[in-house]
């Protein structure tokens, strides 16, 4: 066990492991690139949807059940299925990542919108604001903390899933896990797992810290 940890430590810090096309720096950049792009696409779909449902009150059933559907959907199956259907390209992987990120964004945006005090919305309308003005100037700013929480949760989930996507000949940090498993190289497998876990935890802590900083003047 001691030997294993020593080798793992060497693997994680050695300069040769960090450089080159199979180096940690490059794999990390790939991983973040996939995750950010997939989350952006998911946000472009999920944000308007969540805002619309929250604003109009229509489609509430969808917003609530999308979350449990997203939880129930087996990630591995989805990635493999989209891959088999779409062939060897990046597109199917993005489809799977986006499909997993959308529910978290929609449900949290919707939750943020419904938490807005109805009296505040009435007051805005009473001042003569139009529906769109109420949405953009009153509801959205008040819902913003939960909207950002949804985006953060989606990003973290995508970072986790981008690992599994390496299984279907994708890059990113998951490469180490799956190449290591195939080569029975436990040090490489563990190294990949440690890196992925670290990325997810650090991103989550940094973003929730940023959220707390941005909304430090809000009471509730």
């Amino acid at each position, binding site marked *: *066990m001691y030997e*294993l940890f020593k080798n793992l430590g060497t693997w994680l810090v050695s300069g040769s492991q960090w450089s080159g096309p199979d180096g940690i720096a490059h794999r990390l950049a790939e991983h973040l690139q996939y995750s950010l792009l997939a989350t952006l696409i998911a946000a472009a779909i999920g944000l308007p949807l969540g805002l619309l449902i929250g604003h109009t009150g229509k489609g509430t059933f969808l917003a609530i059940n999308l979350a*449990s559907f997203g*939880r*129930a*959907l*087996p*990630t*591995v*199956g*989805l990635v*493999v*299925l989209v*891959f*088999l*259907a779409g062939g060897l390209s990046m597109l199917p992987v993005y489809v799977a990542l986006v499909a997993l990120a959308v529910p978290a964004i929609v449900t949290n945006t919707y939750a943020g919108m419904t938490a807005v005090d109805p009296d505040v919305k009435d007051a805005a309308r009473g001042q003569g604001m139009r529906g769109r003005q109420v949405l953009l100037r009153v509801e959205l700013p008040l819902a913003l903390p939960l909207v950002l929480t949804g985006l953060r949760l989606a990003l*973290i989930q995508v*970072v*986790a*899933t981008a*690992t*599994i996507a390496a*299984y*279907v000949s994708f890059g990113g940090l*998951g490469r180490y*896990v*799956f190449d290591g*498993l195939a080569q029975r190289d*436990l040090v490489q*497998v*563990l190294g*990949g*797992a*440690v890196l*992925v*876990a670290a990325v*997810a*935890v650090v991103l*989550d*802590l940094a973003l929730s810290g940023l959220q707390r900083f941005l909304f430090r003047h809000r009471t509730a």
Partner: protein
Amino acid sequence: MTIDWSWIADHTDDLTSLTLSHLEAALTAVLLGLLISLPLAVIAHRVRPLRGFLLGASNVLFTIPSIAIFVLLLPVSGLTRTTTVIGLTVYSLVVLLRNTVEGLDSVPVRVKEAAKAMGTRPLRTLLTVELPLALPVIMAGVRIATVMSISLVSVATYIGDGGLGQLFTDGFQRNFPTPVIVGVVLTLLLAVVADALLVALQYVLTPWKRRRA
């Protein structure tokens, strides 16, 4: 992408045993999670200084991707069912802890004071007053943990377990979509049925909620 129905007909025995093995892993994890989270939740609820630490630490665990947790357990428990169950227990533990603490918090102080005034001892208050009143919130956690565990079992296919998840690796390696589709559908079906059964269980366990409605 067409479904090969004859493959399904030829493999009903395999599908049944994979489904049972899948369910066993998920349910064991939720039960273990419940056993561990209950005392932790009571501690987090009653000992304020430990609350932030327990909830914070469990949140960090929850952030770690499932594949990473399984893999990091390999030096400890190897390519076994134990690894699958420990990994899944970690996740259900976090969800259950969060909800149980929230449930205990939601019990009105007046109710607890009334129990105290009637001479009920703390342990008895916990078992006969606080936990039953917290049950709806706890059950919400159990439902989330169960659905999530059922979905996550398949990730363990990479460490040689995974129940229905084995259909995903099988289909991928042979470039054959049928097992993958069957695996996804059965997993979703298991989740829906388990969730419905838990809703029914909650209905049975909380008779006072019914009378009012």
